[in-house]
């Protein structure tokens, strides 16, 4: 065994969307960081669709950007089609979505990682963890190299004992064409972490020349382009490429029904649980049999490739059935599959085994992020990677964890859901999961988070001074809103009308020397805050109540075993999850408000108890016993 001479503060295992953000965050916070990947050519690979964002996911990317992460910038730099979804709805549920050039995205990410100071990128397959008295101290590769690190972040995606299914055939693989990590899971289990199985899938890819686009609807990008990063200027030029919309036919359903016994899911070969919101086409046909057709989007995978992603057609049927199935779709009668669809099973660890800063409870200094925590999606992975990276860096300096709560960010909702409720199926973010979504908007991610990231040293000075400037301009505009609008009411009152826009008063409100992008964003903030004042205030009131419970810390000495008044079910759950606050405890499934009352009383009593014991101890001493 060769021990690599350099000792790292943070080692990140896996260079997917989670690993990249974790490594970049740790390095940017000044920690000596190592990023290890099985294959350097697939850093930041989009294993499934070539798209970033969408509802709730787009929110996450905006937050990642506001916190100094890379995903937003990478998407802007390599995007080939951008849209803002839900423009007809209110601002809280609008979200950006982009198609990216897959290869360009990877090259961009690899290049950023390579040139980031304090970050070493290396190729290597990890075979096991090195753990000494409950604390991780490094890792070993399959070629007998030992890397020492104070903190280790694991972001293994679908690679842990990955098993690829096409039809009833299967073989090990981390992704089609890549080898899996076969021994690392055992290393986790040896250290007391429970591993389980999940499943996901991806559709076939088609070659452009075989597709008849004339039978399909065209879906162009939006102008002006809704970029993800606050740092991307609106003047950045992108030649947008369209997506295409088509649908399955009655014949498609018939093919599926006839071949269902060949699907590994229906044949009972796959044991992992798949995502409900991302069902395979066979699932859709079976579960929604009264629906005659299902829509299919064709998404280009890049500028310098002719591959198309068949969105809506994920399947694990055998290849010959896939061919027949694709040919039954309108416009794909002669389409040529260049990569088959497949399903993949992989190991994950139920995230209730984590602290709220994503460190495992079983092994100190070991952090998990991304699909290993049971999530699905690039954005969910990247967000956790960033969070784990920040906390890994803090831990390597023996500093307190960095935490975001449910009222601050989707990232806070994501992590709290994971560590408090756990997950048995691939977890995806939805806006409906965020109870304070009216204030957790994609338009104000910088106002919510950039200041925090600046304190951590994660954002560049220019991003921070941009934020300061924006806040200044918002104030300047607000201070003028009380002036008459010329319509008999003040401008403030005028723009509260649903159909009115603050843009009408641009001349009165915006000063010429302001940077146009910042001024536009500031005007948007003013408009939203005036229009939705009542609703926003309601959320703010609710958040205040939430914070009250969140500020009640559950002390370390509390031993649930002693509290006989708790119901057994609650006691077990509380013991397992070890909530940090009363607020978190109240969100655990099966813990009732009566249980919470009992906890509060115990905490109060415990304080009195210990001081009483102390007092009686002192009294005993005074008596000379």
């Amino acid at each position, binding site marked *: 065994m060769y021990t690599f001479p350099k000792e790292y503060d943070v080692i990140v295992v896996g260079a997917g969307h989670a690993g990249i953000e974790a490594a970049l965050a740790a390095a940017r916070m000044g920690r000596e960081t190592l990023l290890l990947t099985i294959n350097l050519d697939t850093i930041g690979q989009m294993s499934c*669709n070539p798209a970033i964002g*969408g*509802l*709730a996911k787009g929110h996450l990317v905006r937050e990642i950007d506001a916190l100094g992460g890379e995903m937003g910038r990478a998407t802007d730099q390599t995007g080939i089609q951008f849209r803002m*979804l*839900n423009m*007809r*709805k*209110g601002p*809280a*549920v609008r979200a950006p979505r982009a198609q990216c050039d897959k290869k360009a995205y990877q090259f961009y990410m690899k290049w950023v990682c390579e040139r980031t100071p304090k970050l070493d990128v290396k190729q290597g397959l990890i075979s096991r963890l090195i753990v000494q008295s409950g604390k991780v101290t490094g890792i070993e590769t399959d070629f007998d190299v030992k890397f020492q690190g104070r903190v280790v972040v694991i972001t293994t995606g679908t690679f842990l004992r990955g098993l690829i299914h096409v039809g009833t055939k299967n073989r090990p693989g981390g992704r089609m064409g890549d080898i899996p990590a076969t021994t690392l899971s055992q290393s986790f289990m040896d250290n007391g972490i429970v591993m389980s199985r999940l499943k996901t899938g991806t559709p076939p890819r088609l070659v452009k020349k075989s597709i008849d686009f004339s039978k399909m609807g065209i879906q162009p990008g939006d102008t002006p382009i809704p970029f993800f990063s606050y740092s991307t200027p609106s003047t950045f030029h992108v030649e947008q490429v369209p997506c295409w919309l088509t*649908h399955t036919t009655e014949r498609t359903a018939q093919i599926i029904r006839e071949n269902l016994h060949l699907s590994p899911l229906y044949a009972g070969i796959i044991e992992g649980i798949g995502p*409900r*919101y*991302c*069902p395979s086409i066979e*699932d*859709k046909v079976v*579960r*929604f049999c009264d*629906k005659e057709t*299902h*829509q299919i*989007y064709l998404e280009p995978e890049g500028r310098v490739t002719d591959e198309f992603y068949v*969105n*809506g057609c*994920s399947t694990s049927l055998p290849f010959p059935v896939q061919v027949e199935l694709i040919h039954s779709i309108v416009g794909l009668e002669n389409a040529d599959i260049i990569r088959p669809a497949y399903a993949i099973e992989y190991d994950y660890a139920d995230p209730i085994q984590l602290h709220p800063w994503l460190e495992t409870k079983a092994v100190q200094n070991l952090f998990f992020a991304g699909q290993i925590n049971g999530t699905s999606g690039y954005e969910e992975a990247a967000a956790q990677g960033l969070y784990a990276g920040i906390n890994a860096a803090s831990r390597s300096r023996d500093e307190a964890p960095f935490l975001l709560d449910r009222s601050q960010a989707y990232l806070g909702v994501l992590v709290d859901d994971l560590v408090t409720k756990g997950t048995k199926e691939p977890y995806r973010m*939805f*806006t*409906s*999961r965020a*109870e304070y*979504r*009216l204030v957790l908007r994609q338009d104000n991610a910088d106002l919510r988070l950039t200041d925090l990231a600046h304190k951590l040293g994660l954002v560049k000075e220019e991003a921070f001074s941009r934020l300061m400037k924006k806040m200044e301009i918002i104030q300047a505009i607000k201070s003028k809103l009380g002036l008459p609008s010329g319509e008999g009411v003040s401008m403030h009152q005028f723009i509260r009308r649903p159909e009115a826009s603050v843009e009408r008063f641009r001349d009165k409100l915006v000063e010429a020397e302001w940077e146009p992008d910042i001024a536009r964003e500031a005007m948007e903030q003013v408009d939203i805050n005036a229009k*939705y004042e009542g*609703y926003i205030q*309601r959320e703010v009131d609710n958040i205040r*109540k939430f914070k*009250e419970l969140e500020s009640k810390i559950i002390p370390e000495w509390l031993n649930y075993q002693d509290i006989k*008044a708790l119901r057994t079910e609650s006691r077990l759950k509380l013991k397992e999850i070890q909530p940090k606050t009363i607020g978190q405890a109240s969100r655990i*499934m099966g813990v*009732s*408000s*009566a249980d919470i*009352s*009992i906890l*509060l*009383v*115990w905490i*109060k*009593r415990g304080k*009195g*108890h210990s001081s*009483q014991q102390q007092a009686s101890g002192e009294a005993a001493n005074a008596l000379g016993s």
Partner: protein
Amino acid sequence: MMIDQLETIAAIATPLGEGGISIIRLSGKTALEIADRIFFPADMKLRPSQAESHKVVLGRIMDETHLTIDQCLYLPMKAPRSYTGEDVVEFHLHGGIFLTRKVLELVLSKGARLAQPGEYTKRAFLNGKLDLTQAESVLDVIRSTNDHSLKLSQRLLEGQLSKRIEDSLELFTRMLAYLEAHIDFPEEDIGEENLSFLTQHYQLVREKLLNLIHTENSGRWLREGIRVAIVGQPNVGKSTLLNLLLEQDRAIVSAVPGTTRDTIEETYNFDGVSFRLIDTAGWRNTLDPVEQIGMDRSRQSIQKADIVILLCDASQPWSAWEEEIYQSAEGKIRIILLNKIDLGLRCQATQSAHQLLKVSLLHQTSPIAIKQILLELALKQGLNVQADAVAINARHAFLIQECLISLEKFHVELLKNTPYEFLSLELRDAKARLSEIIGGGDNEEILDCLFKNFCIGK
């Protein structure tokens, strides 16, 4: 001692529907502030929050429009010298379920929230108002209070109620799943936003909830008894009727009439339903003057009653007094009992009564016929004594009403084409109130419903 005061809670501290006074109690950081906003002392210079602690103040409770709801007593108990250790204020009202609830609603509209069962006690512990050595037993109390009320509510919820609440909750879940599907999956093929889906479900759930509200009477009747007022001029036979119904043949001991709070009630059971003869103190006094006092007293009795028996002398003409009393019982179950029919019939009573009986109480030996009539009238008016009876209590009724208020807000916004995320907020509020009745409910079930009903997936 510095007390960390919590969100203000409010509750009716006396059993609902009982006569006499009812007390509304508030505890928490804005209790005094709320008192300032709704209570106006007779001494106009006095601000309720500045009033001396533990001293009673006379005044009026007024709503936003400065309409007086009730004249009442106000009792502030400032932190930490109160039961909970927080600022506590009490309003002592003139009883009456309607009035009490109105004041409670007013208090809630000023920012207090409805207290959970046992919450005052819980706060008392948390604020160290109870000896630490009592902690263990206190835990048991909390536990058992909850278990007990849980059992109670389970018993109450047996049969149809819990099912009917669940049915309504299911409708809410479906509406929310619909909204959330259209919010989170704009790219999916789930159909256009469709106003009629939401309006239909809105109407359905509204109707269900209104029906439930209407069962409140039945529930109260079963729990607390049906309240019967017997009114009539002196010497028409009220005491005789009382004795007959109570099946007492001992001499009547006249109760000393005092204030209107000196209510004496007698109860009899018939076929498992209890009937409460209210304000018997008043009309046992045979010297009851026909004049104003008699009229006022009769009116007060009528106000509290579910069933009003107007007793008349059949041999005397229907008088203006009787006509007025009869009219004032509008909305109640009205029975006109013409007594002393053996002396001839001269009385031409109003015919719109639910029941007109001609009797001679002196010669009546069994009360069964009259009791049977009272029970049948109650049954006709919605009393449900079946085993699967749906009956809700006042707390349920209150929560359902709150739910309906949020539901109405939702409907108003729906018609204004308000974006779905705001509609969702209103609906979630409404659903949360309803969930409080049977507990549980979270976002997962909305997602379950969503993925069950909409084909989502790329």
